[in-house]
């Protein structure tokens, strides 16, 4: 019963995860999920209408801040020419590959430094000092090492993704309730079983937070990487719009970044809520 009610509600929660759930609305899952959908759309729609209206009466100069309809037209023509699909595909590819590499390395190292005191003593100080380097400072070095092609871009994104995932996972593992670990010891679980049956599920909430902030940084760094030098991708559209004086192209790219970023985050958040249905926390209250 609890699970069947959890899924529709958590799907809506993912879009509104910053807002507490009112208890009454959740009594009818279908109604509440529709209702919350609309709530999240109100402000963007109002802004778009306002923007469109102000553009039409000439409040915004069209050569600097074109109307939403112009931006949509730009997106549509890019879609028709097939160009948009290519830009989105290459950008998504970079984010996903960079994210997988960065979060994979962070998962290994974060689990290690969280679980083992020795590994923590040896590795963590170094990683923490590397974390304090602004990631963009790596760009010249990466370009020098790996050239201007894909590897340097992927490396930059991976570095951006790495740290939030690493930090969240490590502190998550360290904060696992000692009392639950002791239960595992009473039942003579070996290290592997202990990790699998106690540490992994107990760390999952912190890990998912890490993955989500890592993904956010991945989107930040794909823009940086594509502005530095690319012939394709949504970040390239930004530069293209700037050099050819087409603000509608820049705005189109920004809107697409917003949409794609939200979409990928929603995927992670939904997976997270599905996995964390057991949590007894304020954000999950009925």
């Amino acid at each position: 019963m609890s699970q069947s009610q959890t899924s529709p509600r958590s799907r809506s929660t993912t879009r509104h995860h910053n807002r507490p759930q009112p208890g009454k609305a959740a009594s009818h899952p279908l109604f509440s999920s529709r209702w919350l959908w609309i709530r999240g759309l109100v402000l963007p729609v109002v802004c778009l209408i306002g923007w469109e209206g102000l553009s039409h009466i000439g409040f915004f100069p069209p050569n600097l801040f074109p109307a939403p309809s112009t931006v949509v037209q730009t997106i549509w023509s890019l879609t028709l020419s097939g160009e948009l699909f290519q830009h989105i595909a290459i950008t998504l590819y970079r984010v996903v590959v960079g994210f997988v590499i960065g979060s994979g390395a962070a998962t290994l190292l974060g689990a290690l430094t969280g679980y083992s005191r020795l590994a923590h003593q040896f590795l963590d100080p170094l990683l923490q000092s590397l974390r304090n380097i602004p990631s963009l400072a790596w760009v010249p070095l990466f370009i020098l090492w790996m050239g201007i092609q894909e590897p340097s871009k992927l490396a930059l994104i991976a570095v951006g993704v790495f740290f939030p995932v690493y930090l969240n996972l490590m502190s998550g593992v360290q904060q696992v309730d000692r009392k639950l670990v002791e239960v595992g010891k009473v039942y003579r679980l070996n290290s592997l079983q202990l990790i699998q049956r106690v540490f992994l599920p107990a760390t999952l909430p912190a890990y998912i937070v890490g993955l989500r902030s890592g993904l956010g940084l991945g989107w930040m760094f794909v823009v940086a990487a594509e502005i530095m030098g690319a012939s394709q991708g949504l970040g390239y559209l930004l530069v293209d719009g700037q050099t050819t004086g087409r603000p509608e192209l820049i705005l189109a790219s920004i809107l697409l970044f917003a949409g794609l970023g939200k979409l990928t985050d929603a995927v992670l958040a939904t997976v997270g809520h599905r996995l964390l249905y057991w949590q007894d926390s304020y954000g999950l209250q009925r």
Partner: protein
Amino acid sequence: MAYSDKPNSASSDPFTPETIMLRLDGVVKQFSNGFMALDDIHLTVEVGEIVSLVGTSGCGKSTLLRIIAGLDVPTLGQVWVNHQPIASPQPEIGMIFQEPRLMPWLTVYENVQFGLAGLSKAEKEHLTYLVLERVGLTAFAQALPRQLSGGMAQRVAIARALITKPSILLLDEPFSALDAFIRMKLQDHLLEIWQYDRPTLVLVTHDIEEALVLSDRVIVLRSNPGRIHQEFVLDLPRPRKRTDLRFQQWKERLLNALDLTADSRSSSSAEDPLPLEVY
């Protein structure tokens, strides 16, 4: 009295009668800061006996229980459970903590199975429903820990400990976090469940009534250093009524034994409005 002479008794203890489930021999626990938590504890508990360890806070009673469970190692001395020396947790030792300590991501059903190993799914299911029925929580098998009350969660913890059929069950202030009414109910309930397999019970508590309701024998510990101060064999018939005159008389005797003031043995603490807990 028969003496144990098992074939693989190289490390076992041949000098203890077979009716003895637990034997502590000169157990000393000194913490790294020099504090003597336990000093020279000798204790034997018979098979199927229910023994309570009572004492004020800091008398080392929980430490003693953790040493018996194999979760802590004594500085000196030896613990034998079922004639085997204990240095780490063993399958025949069950442990119930002050908090339920359920895995919040597992259902009641899965939590109860947590300690089961090496059984088929059908066997596990059979055992799980057996113990869930004993603690009266069959209807909550698919519930999550967050949906349970404190008393129900502790019953799940009891079921989790019982499912492995331990020959000795250690309870560390198991009901102290619950309100007085639920606590009394669970004490009676524990005795009902105990009837099935009659494991040896060693209970740490600072609730004198709890010790009186449950135990055959009460061991009073005193602190700094933690030592066994007095031992009482309770001659109260079962089932025990908390309101019986003799129950109340026993309560007074135990309160006196626990009292730390110098003239405690001569004075009576009966003027106290029946304190449930003694600190």
